[in-house]
């Protein structure tokens, strides 16, 4: 019997199996941010166990509220900063160099095929785009990860999604994942790895694959995963070029992290997405999904482009192509948050920031802020936001506010009219 990629990664990392169905895996990386890590740090200190298993395998960033908005968030940043210094954690990203965790850590080359990664953040599933097993965990799992470099998991069941056909103009990875969540529901992949394969995934950039894997958790998935290929190697090449004689050699090595053809899946879904239309959520759950066509004309108050789902350079390019030379509607506010300083700099060089600002967008520093209603674009009671983020929960972007999730293209088009709008309405909408 063949194995899935997740099973192969587990086999290679198993340190114990204390009970049937419970595996303790060795971790290749533990990612930390300032919201969920400080309580782990203070608890370790209180227990007299203020140690880290390997400072080179721990990466930390202040990203959720940055620069600090008040004394409490300043204190959270300080705890993470002091701890990183105390333990010699070199890969710590502070103001000036910080960005949204699930954008900056891959960008720095910290994610590799075959890795096991945890972070105290549910969207850690993003990193599976590189052929890794990456799972969001709570603070206690994070704490043990920091201390011992291990984490417990149930044996990973896998659901395979075979995405074939060709996406139409104006349809993107975000539309594909919203469609999938709409099909299987917010509980559809609980305790399962969501494995994305097929020609559509093969053709996707790493950015698009990250968008796809990012929202696995919205269907309850433990990790998203895509097979590593030459696209993965090209993305990682600046960081791995000293490890391999050639890109082909790297590809050969990474190719062991794919599922066998006779691997056993929990379920298999095959979708031909050739006719998929741009998608958008309604209501307060990410599986409440309709086509943009069905919701066209719904009024919004704010547009938010950014986050670990859709704040990468590809997303900014797509949105800017829609906005170029145009102004957002008087009735709306536009907020752009490039996900990392590097993305911000590329956007500046390419003239994208000019396009956004000329259109009337406010451009913030890289931060998670508005996505979870913490800072930099919180909604007022009764307001509606067209957002490229990943959650439309009640109150998510501000108490009493409502969120429609959509692609950057749809968000950009929506900002021009003030109502939910298909990007195909505007020239250069691809």
């Amino acid at each position, binding site marked *: 019997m063949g194995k899935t990629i997740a099973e192969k990664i587990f086999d290679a990392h198993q340190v114990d199996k204390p009970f*049937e169905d419970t595996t303790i895996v060795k971790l290749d990386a533990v990612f930390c941010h300032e919201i969920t890590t400080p309580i782990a740090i203070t608890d370790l200190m209180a227990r007299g*166990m203020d140690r880290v298993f390997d400072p080179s395998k721990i990466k930390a960033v202040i990203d959720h509220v940055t620069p600090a908005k008040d004394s409490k968030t300043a204190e*959270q940043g300080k705890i993470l900063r002091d701890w990183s210094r105390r333990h010699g954690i070199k890969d710590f990203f502070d103001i000036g160099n910080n960005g949204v965790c699930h954008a900056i850590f891959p960008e720095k080359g910290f994610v590799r095929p075959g890795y096991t990664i945890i972070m105290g953040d549910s969207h850690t599933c993003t990193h599976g785009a590189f052929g890794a097993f990456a799972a*969001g*965990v*709570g603070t206690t799992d994070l704490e*043990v990860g920091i201390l*011992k470099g291990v984490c417990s998991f149930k044996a990973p069941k896998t659901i395979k999604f075979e995405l074939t056909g060709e996406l139409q103009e104006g349809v993107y990875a975000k539309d594909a994942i919203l469609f999938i969540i709409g099909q299987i529901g917010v509980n559809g992949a609980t305790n399962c790895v969501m494995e994305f394969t097929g020609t559509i995934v093969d053709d996707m950039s790493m950015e698009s694959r990250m968008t796809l894997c990012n929202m696995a958790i919205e269907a309850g998935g*433990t990790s998203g995963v895509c097979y590593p290929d030459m696209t993965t190697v090209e993305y990682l090449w600046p960081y791995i070029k000293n490890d391999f004689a050639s890109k082909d050699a790297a590809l050969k090595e990474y190719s062991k992290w794919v599922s066998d053809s006779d691997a056993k899946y929990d379920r298999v879904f095959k979708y031909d997405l050739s006719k998929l239309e741009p998608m958008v959520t309604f209501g307060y759950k990410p599986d409440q999904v309709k086509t943009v066509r069905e919701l066209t004309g719904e009024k919004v108050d704010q547009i938010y482009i950014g986050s670990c789902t859709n704040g990468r350079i590809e997303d900014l390019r797509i949105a800017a192509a829609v906005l170029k030379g145009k102004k957002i509607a008087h009735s709306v506010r536009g907020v752009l948050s490039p996900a990392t300083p590097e993305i911000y700099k590329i956007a500046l060089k390419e003239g994208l920031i000019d396009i956004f600002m000329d259109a009337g967008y406010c451009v913030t520093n890289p931060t998670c802020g508005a996505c979870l209603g913490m800072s930099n674009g919180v909604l007022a009671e009764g307001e509606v936001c067209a957002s490229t983020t990943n959650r439309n929960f009640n*109150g998510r972007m501000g108490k009493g506010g409502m969120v429609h999730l959509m692609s950057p293209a749809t968000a950009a088009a929506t900002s021009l009219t003030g109502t939910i709008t298909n990007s195909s309405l505007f020239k250069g909408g691809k």
Partner: protein
Amino acid sequence: MKSFSGKVLFLDRSDINTDEIIPAKYLTEITKMALKPYLLEDLKMNGFNPVTDIAGKKVIITRENFGCGSSREHAPWALEVNDINTVIAVNYARIFRQNMYNCGMLAIDLSKETVDDIFITFSGKDTDCVIDTKQSTIQLKSGATAKTINFKLDGFDKALVESEGWVGYADKNY
């Protein structure tokens, strides 16, 4: 071990997410106790009033996929500082369920039929719940109506509850 018994809070809805259990704006707190007043503040459920409905309750009984969404352990902590150490549901989001056991708390899974039956029999009534982790039984009682239900605690979950959480267990074993 913690106390797992007491009065029941019935939450008759599926997919209650961690943003509803404890909104993100309170994640800037760095003590667990500070979360106490905000439990279930944003719960979207007709007729639910967190201020009056939570007081005195020790056990939550709810439907499916409880704790979906964010990984925040603040959700179990917000329950814990309100003396709620037990949730009973058909199933849970993976991270929330693991967080509960990692804190030495109980997230008990029962079949959909059993949960349906509990709601039909007890929901809306003043109900007491006694949980015996050794015998793996749940006793529900409201006035003259009483029911005893068996549940299953997996080996690892049981070990975590007995070790009062994952840090203690991991420190002993790894």
